[in-house]
């Protein structure tokens, strides 16, 4: 039995173009993968969870019902950038290490590191915290695609394999994180 897993976002519908702290970071996108049976484990156990204490760090600035009732303008996405940055780098580095441990691999075993493409500064600092060797290719799809939320990891994985087909069959650490704040990390064998 195969499964189709899709991540799709149309963030442009909920962006305030006058909000300099976020508007130019975000993009629209969609990506999908087919997950199916395999002779070997191709997806490690997932390390996932949430930190509700930071529920206000990322979210919509109004509700749709407030908009409907004329009490607020069209809701848009906002975030406390520095709070998200700190959490995404230092807390997610711990989650990434747990995922590696769960999978029984070391950072040096990774052919690729594919974090959610939230922000290039997060990707850079995150990679530094994980002490990834130079041989690990780091996905930096955000440079041209922007932060496409749920689509970012499939899009980044696809581009990474297009640009580095030799990585097919290698191990990749994928880690997603976002509003909630929620997170999920796993090691996969790249298709």
């Amino acid at each position: 039995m195969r499964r189709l897993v899709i991540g799709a976002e149309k963030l442009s519908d909920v962006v305030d173009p006058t909000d300099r702290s976020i508007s130019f970071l975000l993009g629209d996108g969609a990506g999908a993968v087919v997950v199916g049976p395999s002779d070997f484990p191709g997806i490690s156990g997932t390390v996932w969870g949430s930190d509700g204490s930071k529920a206000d760090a990322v979210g919509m600035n109004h509700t749709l019902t407030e908009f409907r009732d004329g009490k607020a303008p069209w809701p848009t996405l906002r975030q406390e950038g520095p709070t998200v940055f700190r959490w995404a780098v230092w807390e997610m580095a711990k989650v990434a290490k747990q995922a590696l441990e769960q999978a029984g691999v070391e950072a040096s075993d990774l052919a690729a590191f594919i974090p959610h493409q939230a922000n290039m500064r997060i990707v850079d600092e995150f990679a530094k915290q994980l002490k990834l060797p130079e041989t690990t290719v780091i996905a930096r799809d955000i440079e041209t695609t922007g932060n496409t939320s749920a689509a970012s990891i499939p899009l980044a994985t696809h581009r990474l394999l297009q640009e580095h087909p030799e990585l097919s069959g290698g191990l990749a650490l994928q880690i997603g994180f976002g509003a909630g704040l929620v997170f999920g990390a796993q090691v996969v064998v790249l298709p």
Partner: protein
Amino acid sequence: MAFSNDEVLAGLAELITDETGIDASEVALEKSFTDDLDIDSISMMTIVVNAEEKFGVTIPDDEVKNLKTVGDAVSFIVAGQE
């Protein structure tokens, strides 16, 4: 161990240099992080996390925006040690 004002200033200057390349001599108490040193919010957060480790203090996220000058940060760190 408690660091003195001068030690915190010197230690903070080192962290700022590591993160931004700004010369330690530029890091004076009256300097504003954003207006004088041109340090953005992301670099500021990296410096804050490293300062927490270096000085053994806690600097909550919502406190960071109150640290407008180098002097504000030094005072907060010194006070946080007591």
